[in-house]
């Protein structure tokens, strides 16, 4: 399993975490290339079905990341996202998806270093966990 490289789909909000990822890049910080960023205007627009689709398509991990509480560009989108993540964390483990595969973080626009750290840590955790079941099976 040493050569297993997890695929992470990250839904990042335009105002905070995407900017942080951008900052990490312009600051020439390095982090694993396992993550595929999907920029959304707000984590509050991440419908649970996007996360479900990502997992069923074989993502090993899904990260939803937005502004810190109180910093949401749309006032409270991140709080709504938190409820949806809570909901998904009740549902997905029932079908054998380990809860650690789904993560929600708050990463502010100036937190480039923290963003890189989060991706590194997530990749390590997912490597330890192994590939997702959806990767191996005929499901769609």
């Amino acid at each position, binding site marked *: 399993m040493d050569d297993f490289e997890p695929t992470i789909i990250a839904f990042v909000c335009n105002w905070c975490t995407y900017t942080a990822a951008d900052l990490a890049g312009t600051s020439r910080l390095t982090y694993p290339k396992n993550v595929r960023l999907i920029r959304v205007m707000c984590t509050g627009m991440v419908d649970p079905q996007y996360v479900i689709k990502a997992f069923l398509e074989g993502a090993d991990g899904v990260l939803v990341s937005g502004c810190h509480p109180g910093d949401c560009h749309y006032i409270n989108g991140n709080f709504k996202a938190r409820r949806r993540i809570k909901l998904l*964390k009740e549902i997905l483990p029932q079908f054998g998806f380990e809860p650690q595969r789904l993560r929600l973080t708050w990463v502010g626009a100036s937190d480039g270093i923290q963003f890189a750290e989060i991706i590194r840590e997530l990749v390590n955790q997912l490597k330890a966990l192994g590939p997702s079941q959806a990767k191996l099976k005929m*499901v769609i």
Partner: protein
Amino acid sequence: MTITGKIDVKEQDILGALRKFFEDVLNLEDIKAILVPQHLPMKNMVMPTLVTDPNQLNGIDPLAPAFPMNAAKIVSRLTRKPMGAKIVAVLRPCEIRAFFELVKLKQARPDEVVLIGIDCLGTYQNKDYFRFVEKNENDSTVKFYQNVLSAKGAKIDDVDLSPACKACEYPVALNADILIGLYGITENDYLMVQSQTATGENFLAQINPPKIDEPASRQDAVAAVVEKRIAYRDDMFVKTHEATDNLEKMTAYLASCVNCYNCRVACPVCYCKECVFSTDVFNHDPSQYLKWASRKGIIKMPTDTVFYHITRLAHMSTACVGCGQCSNACPNDIPVMELFRTIAQRTQEAFDYEAGRSIEEDPPMSVFREEEFAEVVGIDK
């Protein structure tokens, strides 16, 4: 103050007594119509009917073990905009609970409807009801309620209650305006009628039934039914979880799904006006299927079945009332209700919510608090 009264039953004719009561209700000045299940004159099938003429109540049959649809959808249609008059709706407890969910989703309005909830004796699945009614013809409902109320049980010949009803812990309406009680009434010459809200009290006072105390045996009788149902339900949760606890099993569980979406259509609380699965988003480009197939060498067609069901769970399981219409509607006999109730139990518990419990509680996905669910944030090392 709660009004508890009785509806006299002559010669054990419960349906006749109910008909008389509904006539009295419809004759009230404020009430323009009553929505009540009736045997259709052209076919031996029970469907909701909207009646304005008290002489058109001859076929009423709210006790038949027929449940062709969850009538909350009908009440939603009737109340989504002001109607200009008050109506009465005779509903099963799960229909009232679904109606409450629709009210909270702004797809129904409670102002112009008075809810009458009759103790639910349970129902058969559609195809079982057809067999049952064919065999027993005009006496079918009488035979059914006599058996259930005399503790012979709902199973008649080889026809038994639907799994949804066997697992239902709400045989008695909690928040109807007017409750009609059947369980636990040992004398068979009356039914209990009770107001559960101020509206109900107002209307019941106008009808002015002879007052009684709630029969002492009633609570125990209801508790006994509920206890049995909960035991069945919890066993169902364990078995369903066991049958779906990984993706491979889940794929097998849903293997015969043909994406007809009947379960979604039949669901009273699937609230989107346009479901994403019916939009162009899922009208994939033909070449897309080839790409998917070539990734693993094989894909099951039609695609998106597991995706559809898990998405629907995420969208509506917090509002699921467990009425079982999804299973009823499935052409390929997938135990949809079992899956949805099993997950709904968890999601509703997670938000300390119970679908249909109250007309005031906000649906979990419509609200949030600043301080909550800290455990789902961050990546613990």
